[in-house]
């Protein structure tokens, strides 16, 4: 049952969509991070001076925030890299808050000191989204290259919780930290914190722009197992009902992989999410995109100015269509894929994202077993 808050935001989003208002923005303050996570698409080194030079200044970000606020922005997500790496973080944050924005922060938590917590407590964000990378020093070392990050991240969780700053935990599933998945779920439950595990990991969406990195993700069927395992915890006694409604009368064959669908044609059905409709993403160097997971369309906001960039992104969004095969797929209601994932997987919005197909089919086979449907 959605909360009053969610329902009101949905209502506001609906109205913003009618009026072409950029209600939600994401500001990618930096491409640099103090960690070196192997699967991450945006983790330039903290002391990378070239990248640092191309980052927009605090004055620029504040100016953009003021313009966007006048245009109707309300929800602002601040991210990176690691945003707390910026020494001028609070210069920007305090100004964003004074504009009457609802500001959330993505962070790995390792740079959150007592001083940072005190400052946040005096001017609270809507939420801190803290990504954990494991449940031990060993896992943190294997994945992020820094074993000390473990205790710093968990200390940050403790401090934020004690200061009653709204907090959500994220967890990115990779071969290097899947061993800690259950421990993370237990930790979130014990601390009564919401957890959003990412079992679908995008392939390298910014590699050509940022850095070469390994496509390290678990195989699709394994991702489905973890997603299913989490959903069993999350939905409890409602899981059977959920499985039934996801299967919706279809039977997923045990012996087939995802059907060979005609893969490369658009439908006339447009992208349905808020990307480019009421939401935008601004990269560290000033490119505006509908969504951070999309490499294209991209518009140079620093050259055009915010208003024109937003109109261009809105127009470009209208050209994004769902692959024809997806609109005809029997697994559609269970599938988490989106145009951004199509493009990331294939370099084309029109092409079916096979990894997602495989993951969805595997998930539905697990759902099928869960409610003991006969197999064909």
């Amino acid at each position, binding site marked *: 049952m959605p909360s009053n*808050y969610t329902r*009101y935001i949905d*209502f*506001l989003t609906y*109205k*913003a969509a*009618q*009026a072409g*208002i950029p*209600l939600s923005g994401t500001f990618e303050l930096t491409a640099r991070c103090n960690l070196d996570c192997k699967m991450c698409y945006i983790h330039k080194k903290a002391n990378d001076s070239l990248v640092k030079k191309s980052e927009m200044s605090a004055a620029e970000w504040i100016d953009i925030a003021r313009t966007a606020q006048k245009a*109707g922005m*309300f929800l602002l997500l601040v991210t990176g890299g690691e945003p707390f790496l910026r020494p001028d973080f609070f210069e920007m944050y305090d100004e964003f*808050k*004074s*504009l*009457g*924005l*609802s500001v959330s922060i993505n962070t790995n938590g390792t740079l959150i000191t007592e001083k940072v917590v005190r400052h946040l*407590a*005096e*001017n*609270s964000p*809507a939420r801190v989204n803290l990504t954990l990378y494991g449940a031990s020093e060993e896992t943190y070392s294997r994945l992020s290259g820094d074993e000390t990050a473990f205790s710093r991240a968990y200390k940050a969780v403790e401090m934020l919780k004690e200061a*009653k*700053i*709204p907090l959500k935990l994220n967890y990115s599933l990779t071969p290097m930290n899947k061993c800690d998945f259950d421990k993370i779920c237990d930790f979130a439950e014990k601390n009564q914190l919401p957890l959003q595990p990412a079992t679908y990991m995008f392939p390298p969406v910014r590699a050509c722009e940022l850095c070469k990195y390994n496509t390290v993700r678990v195989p699709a069927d394994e991702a489905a197992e973890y997603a299913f395992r989490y959903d069993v915890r999350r939905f409890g006694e409602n899981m059977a009902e959920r499985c039934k409604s996801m299967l919706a009368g279809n039977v997923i064959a045990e012996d087939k992989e995802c059907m060979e669908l005609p893969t490369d044609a658009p439908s006339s059905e447009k992208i349905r999410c808020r990307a480019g409709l009421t939401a935008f993403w601004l990269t560290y160097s000033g490119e505006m995109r509908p969504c951070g997971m999309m490499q294209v369309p991209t518009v140079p906001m620093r050259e055009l100015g915010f208003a024109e960039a937003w109109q261009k992104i809105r127009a470009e969004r209208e050209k994004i269509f769902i692959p024809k095969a997806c609109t005809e797929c029997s697994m559609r209601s269970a599938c988490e894929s989106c145009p951004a994932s199509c493009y990331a997987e294939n370099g084309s919005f029109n092409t079916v994202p096979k990894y997602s197909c495989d993951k969805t089919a595997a998930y539905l086979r697990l759902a099928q077993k869960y409610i003991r449907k006969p197999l064909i």
Partner: protein
Amino acid sequence: MKLNQNFILREIAGEAMLVPTGEISAKINGFIALNEVGAVIVKKLAEGCEISDIVKALTDEFDVDEETALRDAESFLKGLRENEVVTD
């Protein structure tokens, strides 16, 4: 009477809301959505006003008598004071 400066009045897509900031945002994690009547009252408060100014604004804007407008405004202001939205 005046609006507490820690509340920012926003108007987005025709909807008015009060967004807490500073020390108030630690107490209220969210915002106050205003309906049409609330929006008229809060806009007056943002300028600084007396209760009589609010009553006049309401009777100008809506089909309501003074007595009802005063009673409703006072009830609303009570809630605003309790949430530290209004400073006298």
